[in-house]
């Protein structure tokens, strides 16, 4: 005997296109136009899951996004996707679905033994047992509970599908394409406004798809819309969240089109849509009735039975009971009767609405109990007619809840409307409009008129004043919507479920109330009500009704929980879009990058930059290569890419005055053609950055910053010029991308330079330390600076970026007889440690000039940024942690950046007296050295201390020394 079967005709399905799919490995077939849920129902598969806590048998409840029970794991392997409601899944050929939360099968579920232990799973059980006095017990139990009670499991494999993001803009967004939404889109579209009509379903029409009498109206409206080029219609496109300034994030699903990632076709697209005005035509969701065992398979929402009957042409069995507390279930009863089903309509209200011929109606009666475990078999009534009826399906309607999630996302609290026993939007922003069921307008004719009006208003709000709101509507008046909600039964036989997915019963609410968890937000967290993947779409109002009954208050006084995005589940991939893998964040490349890549460079990330870590000529691993590269610079000559340095063009009559203000040391009198090392502070007196700035002319400077702070310094200089010192006639422009830079360093660097630029006088006289020469070389403007980061005789060659590879190759070629080679970042950074130059690791926005040993640079006479707050008492304290050098005293052991420093006699505990910032092997001293900050700094020179790295259980002795390990007098760089 079948409980459900497909009619030979009718419905929005294409019987010519048969579709095969599997459930738990077994093959079934349905039709194009089916959802997974409708196809299963047509195949009479009604038991499709086990509940979360009690493992009770469950079937379909709904035909839409509100589905709490019929969750499936779809796909296999890396495409496994858990917890997807079958009601929203387009049936496509080869679809693989698996039921969840049952082992070994839904029919025979070992975990159903949980039902015997049901008292354990009452609300609050988790809290009391696992969060209680026994510390750590949750950690112990959690894995077991998750395994027994979890939903579907996600795969750990990389998702092979493609997801994209898209930006869109429109004048009027209409959310929902039911009667009201279609009307709104048409009337807004007539104004000429750009309209985006978003519908989460595969078809446009919403509730109309279950109204056969409205089909011609629907078709006519769709034709009208299709004729408007300014209206874009999107199906399978769910508005997930509403954010500030009318940003709506929608997710469009394209599984039905079989997207091929290798061809760039996305499976889902996350759309960030900016709308000037929005019409919410999001409809309403039906509520179940609350009675004992109301979760049995075969008990479905009346709207769902109607949708399956009319949209999917699926007839339920031979006998149906329709139980309701309002008028909207009456048409279903009539249609079932017309389809040859014996119908008993049970209405809890004393007076019933008009019924169609062939429908038996019992007033003043409610469902008391049901019989049948795997599927409903009998209904027993209470009230005026205490009879028992056999049935194949029990269709229930507990009234309707407007879908006001989206309208509430910006924080507007919903308002309770007692006349319809439901929450409605609590108000709208100026550019927001509502129409249809979301407003509590349940009549079709009224919804169409309201939609048309909202479309005109929304177009007006978007700046399209003249629009035609005339709308073809339907004849006759809407039936009145009347509802009487009986107080929920909070005790009695059988579990009366409020929230099917989270397995929360009326009794749980009672317990929560008894234990003082009475506010809605507490109720939610104590019972887990509404916390499932369906977010309580069917349960919210029934639970509030139960709590308000217990507290002796009206529902509005109890309030409702906060609605937050997303409205329905979103694939993580759709959120990430293409910002994955190498596109997780932008990558920045030096103009010399292509040369490095072709010449054996290993790269390392430095902020957004990919920099050369070391070159293959020097070794296979960084540990050996950087030492060889350091030796190259200390003994011969090396070439390194420093294009990542921030470079800023500072121009204008007041350029010198400007730099004199931002640097702690003087720049006003810097001669043209000379460079100077400078340090900048923040307003708070802490070091912001350092770098070398060269005076190109009286009114032009070439400023360099560290790689890390380039953006920060640029913004800071712009801030000062544009908001604080508007009287200064200075203009700044970033040249970081315009100019490449390369460091030529080592005792033979002058010889290399002479070979590279034969006509240029680079003698100590022609280009002294901190000097600058500008000349043209083979059509390229060269800015040659004599600077040293390594402490060796060294130069920086700056030139427009496109010429950098040819010049780099030229230098390596002509200086080859000197043994020149390129060197990478690790060697560059290690050479400067030997020299005791501070860099990013020391310039961490916590240290002062004095902490870094640079206090003497601060000008006494002139004001500079940070001068005042630098003198704060604590910043001048004598025992501040300040820069020291460290020498490892235990050969064979290692120092580590981040190691905590302790005096030799200290207990190894707490934050110590300082830490190591930078470590290297010194080729000069042939030992491991480091820079660090230590309490009292160089007052401790000679002291033996402990460098502790407790994570690795390392405790190593080191000696505090001057940080200038190499050439402290600067003889080399002045040579």
């Amino acid at each position, binding site marked *: 005997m079948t409980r459900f079967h497909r009619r030979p005709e009718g419905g929005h399905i294409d019987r010519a296109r048969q579709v095969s799919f599997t459930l738990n490995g077994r093959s079934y077939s349905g039709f194009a136009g089916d959802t997974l849920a409708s196809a299963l129902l047509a195949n009479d598969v009604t038991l499709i899951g086990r509940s979360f806590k009690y493992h009770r048998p469950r079937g379909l409840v709904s035909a839409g996004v509100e589905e709490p029970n019929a969750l499936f794991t779809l796909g296999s392997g890396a495409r496994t996707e858990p917890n997807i409601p079958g009601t929203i899944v387009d049936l496509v050929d080869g679809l693989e679905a698996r039921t969840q939360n049952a082992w070994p099968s839904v029919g025979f579920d070992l975990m159903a033994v949980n039902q015997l232990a049901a008292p354990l799973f009452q609300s609050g059980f988790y809290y009391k047992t696992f969060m209680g006095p026994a510390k750590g017990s949750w950690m112990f139990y959690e894995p077991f509970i998750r395994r027994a009670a979890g939903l579907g499991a996600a795969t750990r494999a990389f998702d092979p599908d493609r997801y994209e993001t898209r930006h869109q803009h429109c004048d009027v967004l209409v959310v929902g394409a039911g009667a009201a939404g279609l009307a709104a889109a048409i009337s807004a579209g007539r104004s000429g406004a750009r309209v985006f009509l978003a519908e989460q379903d595969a078809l446009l029409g919403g509730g109309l798809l279950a109204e056969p009498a409205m089909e011609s109206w629907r078709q006519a409206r769709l034709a009208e819309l299709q004729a408007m080029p300014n209206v874009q219609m999107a199906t399978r496109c769910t508005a997930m969240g509403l954010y500030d300034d009318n940003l709506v994030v929608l997710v469009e699903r394209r599984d039905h089109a079989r997207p091929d990632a290798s061809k760039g076709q996305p499976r889902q697209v996350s759309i960030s849509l900016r709308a000037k005005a929005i019409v919410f035509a999001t409809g309403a969701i039906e509520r179940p009735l609350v009675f004992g065992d109301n979760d049995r398979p075969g008990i479905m929402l009346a709207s769902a039975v109607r949708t399956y009957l009319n949209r999917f042409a699926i007839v339920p069995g031979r006998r149906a009971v329709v139980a309701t507390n309002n008028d909207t279930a009456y048409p279903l009863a009539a249609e079932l009767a017309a389809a040859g089903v014996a119908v008993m309509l049970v209405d809890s209200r004393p007076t019933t609405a008009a019924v169609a011929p062939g429908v038996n109606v019992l007033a003043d009666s409610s469902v008391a109990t049901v019989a049948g475990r795997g599927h409903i078999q009998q209904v027993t009534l209470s009230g005026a007619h205490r009879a028992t009826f056999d049935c194949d399906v029990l269709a229930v309607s507990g009234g309707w809840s407007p879908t006001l999630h989206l309208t509430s996302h910006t924080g507007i609290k919903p308002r309770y409307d007692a006349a319809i026993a439901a929450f409605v939007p609590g108000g709208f922003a100026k550019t927001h409009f509502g129409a249809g069921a979301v407003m509590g307008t349940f009549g079709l004719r009224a919804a169409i008129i309201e939609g048309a009006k909202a479309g005109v208003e929304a177009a007006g709000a978007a700046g399209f004043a003249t629009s035609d709101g005339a709308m073809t509507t339907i004849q006759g008046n809407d039936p009145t919507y009347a509802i009487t909600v009986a107080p929920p039964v909070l005790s009695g036989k059988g579990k009366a479920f409020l929230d099917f997915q989270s397995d929360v019963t009326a009794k749980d609410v009672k317990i929560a109330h008894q234990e003082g968890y009475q506010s809605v937000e507490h109720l939610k967290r104590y019972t887990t009500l509404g916390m499932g993947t369906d977010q309580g779409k069917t349960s919210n109002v029934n639970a509030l009704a139960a709590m308000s009954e217990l507290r002796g208050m009206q529902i509005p006084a109890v309030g409702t929980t906060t609605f937050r995005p997303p409205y329905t589940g979103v694939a993580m991939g759709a959120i990430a879009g293409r910002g994955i893998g190498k596109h997780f964040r932008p990558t920045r490349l030096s103009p010399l990058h292509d040369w490095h890549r072709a010449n054996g460079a290993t790269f390392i990330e430095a902020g957004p930059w990919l920099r050369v870590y070391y070159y293959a000529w020097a070794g296979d691993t960084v540990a050996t290569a950087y030492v060889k590269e350091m030796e190259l610079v200390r003994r011969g000559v090396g070439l390194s890419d420093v294009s990542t340095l921030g470079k800023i063009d500072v121009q204008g009559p007041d350029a010198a005055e400007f730099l004199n203000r931002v640097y702690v040391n003087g720049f006003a009198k810097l001669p043209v053609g000379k460079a100077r090392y400078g340090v900048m502070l923040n*307003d708070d007196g802490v070091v912001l950055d350092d770098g070398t700035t060269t005076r190109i002319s009286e009114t032009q400077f070439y400023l360099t910053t560290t790689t890390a702070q380039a953006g920060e310094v640029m913004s800071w200089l712009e801030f000062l010029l544009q908001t604080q010192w508007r009287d200064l006639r200075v203009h700044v422009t970033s040249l970081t991308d315009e100019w490449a830079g390369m460091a030529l360093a080592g005792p033979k660097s002058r010889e290399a330079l002479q070979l590279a630029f034969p006509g240029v006088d680079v003698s100590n006289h022609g280009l002294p330390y901190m000097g600058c020469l500008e000349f043209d070389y083979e059509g390229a403007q060269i800015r040659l600076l004599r600077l040293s980061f390594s402490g060796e005789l060294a130069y920086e060659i700056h030139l427009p970026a496109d010429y950098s590879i040819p010049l780099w190759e030229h230098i390596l070629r002509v200086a080859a007889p000197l043994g020149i080679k390129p060197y990478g970042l690790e060697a560059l950074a290690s050479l400067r440690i030997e020299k005791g130059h501070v860099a990013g690791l020391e310039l961490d926005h916590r240290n002062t000039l004095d902490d870094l040993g640079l206090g003497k640079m601060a000008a006494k006479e002139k004001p500079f940024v940070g001068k005042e707050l630098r003198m704060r008492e604590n910043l001048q304290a004598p025992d501040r942690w300040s820069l020291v050098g460290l020498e490892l005293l235990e050969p064979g052991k290692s120092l580590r950046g981040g190691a905590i420093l302790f005096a030799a006699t200290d207990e190894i505990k707490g934050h110590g007296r300082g830490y190591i910032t930078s470590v290297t092997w010194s080729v000069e001293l042939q030992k491991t050295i480091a820079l660090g900050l230590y309490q009292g700094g160089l007052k401790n020179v000679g002291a033996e201390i402990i460098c502790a790295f407790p994570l690795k259980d390392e405790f190593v002795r080191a000696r505090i020394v001057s940080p200038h390990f190499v050439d402290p007098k600067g003889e080399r760089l002045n040579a």
Partner: protein
Amino acid sequence: MRIPCPHCGERDYSEFRYGGDASKQRPAHGSGDIKAWHDFYFLFDNPKGPHAEYWQHVLGCRRWFVLTRNTATNEVGGPA
């Protein structure tokens, strides 16, 4: 959130960088004692409602400007 850049027009807030409270006057260069700078740099009101703020259009024209933003609603414009 949308921010009106005085040069480029209205853009998504992700094109901008926030630059702090603009309701207070930074002491003029070379003036002010530690106390004045301390109060400017470290003491802030935390208003619920309109707030004058510095923003820079970093992905656009790089202009700094003062924007009034309602800290409760993110509504932009109007007097602080």
